[in-house]
Every structure is written in structure tokens, then in C-alpha cells.
């Protein structure tokens, strides 16, 4: 197994740092999967056990790295899966924003390590400094790879573009204080409603004129408690009740400069949030619905 990569552009470096720091805030540990054409950061739910990944981030290596060499165990297993403490990785990358060059490689010291060599320009002289971080990693054996495959999800009933994440986050954070669960409702007419209901209050925030990417209607509402007060055609809306904390966590990804964020809903079952950036990075978050 061999891995070596070099990054020299400031833009990708900043983006890489932002992505890693966002992920480190979401989870203590993550899986770094290296493959010949992409690198992946995968987060499973904290309560260990075979659960499908909650967060899935893929980055095409060619837009980030100048050089990229990888040799897997054998020809059939070209990928490398590494278990890593995400805070270690993000702390090591803090200096990357001003760095000239980053070399990443897999090394064998006392334990397997992901070694980061960061070359820093010196403010006083022409010479540069070199900082080396050795981050201990756990090499994930092949038989466990299947746990970290991209989750296979049912076809979403609706995909709708989200409003500015920062704005959405302040609203969700207020709601989070009042209720642990929030209902996300999206309609084919481009409306997105966030709603909480407690004994003390019922609060709904409505966004309108959002772009609907796809709609696979009509939605069968026959088994749900009908709310007849809504004027709109219920067969054109679908909803899902999710954990407000998880939703808010994903929204902290707003510091990654992104093109757009799509929210896809499988009626009452699943919410998939997908953030895409200029560099073709895709950050996906899967939040399963809460059903009573």
C-alpha cells in the first residue's frame, strides 16, 4: 500500500481545510477513503454498529492535487480506507491557509500514520519552514469496507434547492431550543416549510420561490393525519420529521463556499442534504426520518 499526494494551489487548500474542519465539528472520527480518482470522507453515526453512513463527502483528486499516486493492496482492491480522528486532521490543517505546499503520504512509524508535510513561507526571509504532522490512522481491513459504501437510498419524492444556509441555520437553531424535532415539508410549487409543534407553541417558517429540481408525485397521504387547513394540494407536498440537532449540524457546512444545496425528501422516511461546490466536491448528509 502506498499513497502520496501533493497540493500547491491556495484555493483548493482553503477548501480542503474548510471541509475537514466542518466534518471535525460533526463527528469525532471519520473514514478517509482514498481511491484512484476521488478521495472520500465518510462519517457513520456515533452509536457504533453497522449503520449506513450519515455523512458522505467526495472530492475529485484531480482538482485538489498536483500529484497523486496510490497503490492499493492488489489490483482488485485499489482503494485505501483509513480510520482517523477528525480533530487531529483538522488541527493539523489549520496552518494550511497560508502554506505554499502540502505533501500527504502514508507512512509507517510506530503505527500507521498519515504524514502531512506543510511548507510555510517565512515572513522574514526567503527560506521556508517545513512542518510535519504525523497523524495516527487505523487501516480498515477489506472485510469491513462494505460498511462504508455509499448508502443506497430510495428515489426521493422531491428535490428542492435550499435557501442560504446561514439564514436557515439561525432559524433551525431557534427552533432547536424549543423542540428536538422539526418537520421539513416541501412542495412542488417551490415552498419549503420548517415546522415545530410543542405544547407551548407551533412555529412554522415558510420559504417560497425555491427551485424544484425534481418531483415524483403524487404523494400518497392516505395514512397520515390530514391537516385540512392547508389550501394547497397535499398530493404535491411531502414531508419528513427529523432530528433538529442533526439538521443544524449539517447547516454548519455553510462555511464551505458552495454553489448550491439541494434538499431531497423521501416522504416520511429520509432527508438527503447535498451540498455542491465549484470544485465538484459533493457533501451529502443522510438524516433518517422519525416516525411514531
Amino acid at each position: 500500500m502506498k499513497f502520496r499526494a501533493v497540493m500547491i494551489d491556495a484555493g483548493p487548500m482553503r477548501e480542503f481545510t474548510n471541509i475537514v474542519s466542518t466534518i471535525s465539528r460533526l463527528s469525532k472520527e471519520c473514514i478517509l477513503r482514498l481511491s484512484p480518482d476521488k478521495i472520500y470522507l465518510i462519517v457513520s453515526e456515533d452509536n457504533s454498529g453497522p449503520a449506513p453512513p450519515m455523512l458522505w463527502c467526495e472530492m475529485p483528486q484531480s482538482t485538489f492535487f498536483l500529484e497523486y499516486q496510490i497503490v492499493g493492496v492488489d489490483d482488485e482492491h485499489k482503494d485505501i480506507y483509513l480510520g482517523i480522528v477528525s480533530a487531529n486532521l483538522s488541527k493539523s490543517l489549520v496552518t494550511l491557509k497560508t502554506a505554499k505546499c502540502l505533501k500527504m503520504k502514508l507512512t509507517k512509524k510506530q503505527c500507521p500514520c498519515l504524514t502531512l508535510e506543510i511548507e510555510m513561507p517565512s515572513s522574514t526571509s526567503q527560506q521556508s519552514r517545513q512542518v510535519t504532522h504525523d497523524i495516527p490512522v487505523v487501516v480498515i481491513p477489506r472485510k469491513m469496507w462494505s460498511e462504508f459504501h455509499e448508502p443506497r437510498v430510495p428515489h426521493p419524492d422531491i428535490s428542492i434547492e435550499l435557501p442560504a444556509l446561514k439564514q436557515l441555520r439561525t432559524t433551525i437553531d431557534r427552533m432547536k431550543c424549543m423542540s428536538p424535532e422539526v418537520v421539513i415539508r416541501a412542495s412542488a410549487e417551490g415552498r419549503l416549510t420548517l415546522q415545530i409543534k410543542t405544547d407551548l407553541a407551533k412555529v412554522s417558517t415558510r420559504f417560497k420561490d425555491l427551485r424544484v429540481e425534481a418531483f415524483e408525485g403524487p404523494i400518497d397521504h392516505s395514512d397520515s393525519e390530514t391537516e385540512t387547513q392547508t389550501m394547497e394540494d397535499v398530493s404535491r407536498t411531502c414531508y419528513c420529521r427529523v432530528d433538529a440537532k442533526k439538521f443544524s449540524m449539517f447547516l454548519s457546512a455553510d462555511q464551505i463556499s458552495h454553489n448550491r444545496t439541494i434538499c431531497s425528501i423521501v416522504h416520511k422516511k429520509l432527508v438527503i442534504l447535498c451540498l455542491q461546490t465549484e470544485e465538484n466536491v459533493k457533501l451529502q448528509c443522510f438524516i433518517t426520518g422519525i416516525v411514531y
Partner: protein
Amino acid sequence: MDSGKTLCSLIKAIQFQECAVFCAMQEGLKLTVEEGKCVQASAYIPADNFNEYHVRDDVDVMFKISIAVLTECLNIFGSAEESSLKMYYRCEGSPLLLVLQPQSFSNVMTDCEISTQTAESVLELRDEDTEEVAKLVLKAPAFLSLLVDMEKTCDIIEINLSPEHPNVSIVTYGMQDRSCIDMPKSSDMVQSFNCEKSVTLKYQLQHIRLIMKALAVSSKVVLRCSSNGLLLLQLKLEKEDQRQMFSEFYIVPLLDD
């Protein structure tokens, strides 16, 4: 109302209990919070703060509401955002409706239904028969920094007011110490001073500290002491548009042992 921001900061200033009594009168809105039977805090929002304000005059609009939920709802778009606010209330038992719309985004709005409860009666601490023995007008930021400086572990605060120098002296008693702050009426922070004969009043410092959040958002504070020892603090919050909102604290004195 064009901006719910000041309203929210005023309500937050009296948020030391879970529930508040919400009362709508012809003159404006009033929210009252009580701590035991010792402290009563009210926030007044005069009707001229609203672009439109209607109250039916044949019924008493009065109910109990969770103040924490109310502030979260008012702040739903974050504290940086100015948002317009509409409030509706139909009748006893119906929820208080809020409709908020931020000024910088037009494609979003929030509506809240906050459940209400029938209000118990509010303490009537003011006694018309007792006369006022002293009145003091202070600058709120200066008074706040004075309270911040006081030792937090002290239980009792003694306020001595007298027509002679030093006109105001504040003494705190702690476990081991006694500290004293003198404030002559010529001091910068004293805007006006009225006291005919000297009085000594004792309060729980903890009660006085409840006003600190309100002081932080106010410009001016009026202290009134009545002959039965009841302390009334009236705080004025000035907004950019010259309209005013008030908060008011009644604090019951400690009796001599």
C-alpha cells in the same frame, strides 16, 4: 411593527422566570414577570411603537405565556436581522399569533402560534397611600457598572439616602466584608436627586441584580423609594426613532430583624 428587535431585547431583559403575564391595554402592551412575591418586573411597550395597534376596549386582554418561547420566536431569524412583526390574539384560550418577516429577504416568513394560559392575578405592590420619600435619576450604563463591581457573594445591599453629603451611599454585606460606595449628587451619573429626609433601606442583592439585563439596554433609570420601603426602578429604553419603551421593577425590602 417594523422591527421586533428592540422589543425582543426588552423582553429578554425581564426574562428571569418561565412565564409572563401578557396584557394588552389601550395605551400599549405590558408583560409582567414575578419572582416569588418579592420582585415584579414589567416591560411596557407604548402603543405608538406599533404602526397599527387595536385592542377591544370591552374586554380585558390578559393571559399567561412562556417568555422563553416568545423570545425564541421573536428571534427566529437571528439577532442580526431586522424583521417586521405582526401580533394577533383573538380571545381567551386562543393562541397568540406572531407573523415575522425579515427585511432583507422577501421570500420567507414565519408564523408562530404560542399557546396561552389564563393569567392569575398580578401582585399589586404599589400602595397609593404611601408617599414617595426619595427620587433619583441615574445614568443606566454607569449604574450598571457599579452593580457589576459589587461582590457577587454578598447577600444584602443597604441603600442610604440623605439630603446631606454623601447623598447616596450603598453598602453591601458579605460573609466577611462590608463594602461601601458613596455617590454624591454632584456625581456625573446622578442626573437628579430628590430626598427630604434620610432613609436607610435594605434589599437582597440578588433581587437588585435582576435588573442588570434591563440596565444594559436602557439609557436612564429612575429610582423611587416609598415610605414603606418599596423600591421602584423605572428604566427607559430609547430607540433610534425617538420612541420609547420602558421596564419597571418593584422590589420588596428586607425587614429588620
